C-alpha cells in the first residue's frame, strides 16, 4: 500500500520536475556515499561536494547531486528517492556494504542509468559500468618495502590493525608479503579498531612488552596519531619509524615537513570519489569512453610528491 503511494507521489513529483528538467535538459549525476562518521568518510563527503560544486559550475548542462546516508538501509532508501523523482543519467555510489546494495543498484541500472561503483565492489560486478578503487594490498606492500629498504632488511616490527574486514586483511596481507624474504620480524599484531585511543593504549602495551622495537606500522592514520603520542610519552629512542596509511592531512603535513619518524605515507585517498565523479561526467559530456575498472595505485608519498595528496581544507 505504502509502496503504491510512493509510486504515485514519485510520479507526481516527476511530472512537476519534468517541466523544469525538459526546459534545462540537464544531465543528472547522483552521488550516493556514506555519511561522515569518521575521518576517511568525512574526506569522501568533502571531495564529493567539492567535485559537485566544480562540475556544476563548469558544465551548465550537468547537475551533480550528492546524497549522504548513515547506514546501508538508509542508502537503499536514498537510492529509491534519488531515482524516483527523475531519470538519472549516472549514479556514482560508494556502497556501505556489498550485499545489501547490490540489488537496489541493479534496479537503478535497469532504468538505464550509467553505474559507477567506488571503493567497495558490489556482489555482481556485471552491474557496474565503471569501477574506481584504491589498492589496499599496495598500501601494505609499499610500506613494507620502504621498511625493508631503510632498516637494511633486519629489525623488529610491531603492527596495529583495524577492524576485521576485507580492507584490513588486504593491507596486512600486502605488508606480510612485502617483508617476506627479509629478516624483518613482526613481534606482534593486534586490533586497535582504527581508533586513536585504542591505538594509544595498544602502543603503550607494546612498549611495555618489547624492549627493542625498530619500527611501528599502524594500517591507518587515525591509529598512527595515538601511536606517536604513546612513543613521545615513553621517551623511547630506539624506534626509527612509525608509519601509517590512508593519507590524512596531518600525516601528509609531517611528510612535507620532513619528519624523521614519519618520512613517508601511503595513500588510500578519499579523493578517489572525485576521480570517479569526474570520469563519469567525462563520459556524459565529453563523449569519452570510460567503461572498465580503475585501480588507483598507492605509491609511496614522499616529500617530493606530497603536495599532490595534501588537502589542507579537507577534514581528513
Amino acid at each position, binding site marked *: 500500500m505504502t509502496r503504491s503511494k510512493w509510486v504515485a507521489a514519485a510520479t507526481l513529483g516527476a511530472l512537476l520536475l519534468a517541466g523544469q528538467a525538459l526546459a534545462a535538459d540537464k544531465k543528472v549525476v547522483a552521488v550516493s556515499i556514506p555519511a561522515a562518521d569518521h575521518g576517511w568518510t568525512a574526506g569522501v563527503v568533502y571531495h564529493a561536494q567539492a567535485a559537485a560544486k566544480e562540475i556544476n559550475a563548469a558544465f551548465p548542462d550537468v547537475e551533480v547531486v550528492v546524497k549522504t546516508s548513515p547506514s546501508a538501509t538508509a542508502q537503499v532508501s536514498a537510492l529509491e528517492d534519488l531515482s524516483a523523482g527523475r531519470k538519472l543519467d549516472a549514479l556514482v555510489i560508494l556502497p556501505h556494504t556489498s550485499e545489501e546494495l547490490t540489488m537496489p543498484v541493479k534496479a537503478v541500472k535497469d532504468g538505464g542509468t550509467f553505474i559507477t561503483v567506488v571503493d567497495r565492489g558490489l556482489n555482481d560486478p556485471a552491474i557496474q559500468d565503471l569501477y574506481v578503487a584504491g589498492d589496499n594490498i599496495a598500501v601494505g606492500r609499499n610500506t613494507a618495502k620502504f621498511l625493508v629498504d631503510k632498516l637494511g632488511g633486519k629489525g623488529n616490527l610491531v603492527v596495529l590493525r583495524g577492524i576485521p574486514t576485507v580492507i584490513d586483511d588486504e593491507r596486512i596481507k600486502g605488508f606480510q608479503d612485502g617483508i617476506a624474504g627479509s629478516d624483518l620480524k613482526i613481534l606482534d599484531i593486534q586490533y586497535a579498531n582504527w581508533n586513536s585511543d585504542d591505538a594509544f593504549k595498544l602502543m603503550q602495551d607494546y612498549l611495555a612488552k618489547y624492549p627493542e622495537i625498530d619500527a611501528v606500522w599502524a594500517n591507518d592514520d587515525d591509529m598512527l596519531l595515538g601511536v606517536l603520542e604513546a612513543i613521545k610519552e615513553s621517551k623511547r629512542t630506539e624506534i626509527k619509524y612509525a608509519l601509517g596509511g590512508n593519507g590524512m592531512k*596531518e600525516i601528509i603535513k609531517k611528510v612535507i615537513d620532513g619528519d624523521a619518524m614519519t618520512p613517508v605515507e601511503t595513500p588510500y585517498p578519499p579523493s578517489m570519489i572525485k576521480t570517479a565523479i569526474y570520469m563519469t561526467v567525462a563520459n556524459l559530456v565529453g563523449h569519452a569512453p570510460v567503461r572498465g575498472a580503475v585501480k588507483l595505485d598507492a605509491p609511496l608519498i614522499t616529500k617530493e610528491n606530497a603536495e599532490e595528496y595534501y588537502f589542507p581544507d579537507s577534514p581528513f
Partner: protein
Amino acid sequence: MSVVSQPARLGRERDFSFNWADAGPFLALLALLVIGFLVNPDFLSPTNLSNVITRSAFIAIIAVGATFVISSGGLDLSVGSMAAFITGITIMFMNMMAPSMGTWSIPAGMGIALLAGIACGLVNGIIVTVGKIEPFIATLGTMGIFRALITYMSDGGTIPIDRSLREAYRPVYFGTVAGIPLPIIISLAVAAIASFVLYKTKYGRKCAAAGANEDVARYSGISIVRTRTIAYVIQGACVAIAAICYVPRLGAATPTTGVLWELQVITAVVIGGTALRGGKGHIWGTVAGAVILELIANLMVLSDFVSEYLVAAVQGVIIIIAMLIQRFSK
C-alpha cells in the same frame, strides 16, 4: 522481594563494619595481578602499571558518576557520546580564547567543560524524571544527539587543540605529583568525594533508597524526581572531569572519541558490586572495576597465548570469572 527491607538496613553503623561486597572486586583485582605476573613479569613493572591505571582514569571517573545514577535506579547510555561532545566544546572554546587569553584559556575551558557536563546531565535527568521516560530510551536518544553534534562540529573529521596550548595542557594527562600520574590523583579525589557524598550524606541515602524501592522511598518523603535528577547532574559533572583529563592525551576530539565507553562504564559499575537494578552503590568497587577492565585488555596484549581474533572472547570470560569470584567471596 527482599528489597523492601533494604532501606532499613542503610543505617550509619554499617559504614564502619567490614563489607565483603566491597572487598569482592578487590579480590578479583588481586587475582588478576597475580595471574598477570605469572603470565609476564613485565606486567607488574611500575611503568606498565602506571600506564594502565592512568588510562583507566577516564572510565573510572565516569563510572563513579554512573554509580550514583545506577544506584538511584537509573541508567545512562549517553556518557561516551557526552564525553566526546564536551571534549569538542572544550577544545573549540579554548582555541577561540587562545589568542586573547593565552594559556589562561585552559582553566576557562575547564570551567566551560564542567558547565556543559552539568547542563548535559540536567537534560538527561529532566527527560528521565519529569518526562517520565525509561532511562534506557531517554539516554539512548541523547546518546545519538551528542554523537551527532560532535560529528557535526568536526565535519566528521578532527577538532585539534591549538598548538600554543598543547604543551601547556599536556601535564594534566602526562604530568605526575610525587611520582603518581595526575589522572590517577584526580580519579582518587573524585572517588573520595563521591564516597563521602554517597555514604555520609543525606543525599547518598536518598539515592540508595530511591533505587532500592521507589514506592517505599516516596512514602518516606523522598523526592524521586529531585534525587534522580541530581544523580544525572553528578554523572554529567564526572563526564566533564573525565573530558578535561582526556583532552591533553591526544589533543583532539573526533566522532569516534568515547565510542562504547558507556558499556565499559556500566561493566565497571557492575563488576564493582553495584546492582544494575539499583540500591546501594559501591564507589571504590567501581574504581576497582574500571582498573580490572583496563588490566584485562593490557594482559591480552602482554600474553602470547591468545590469537588476536579471540581477544574479545577471552575478555568476556575473564569478566564473568571476576563476577563469579565476587559472588562467592560474599
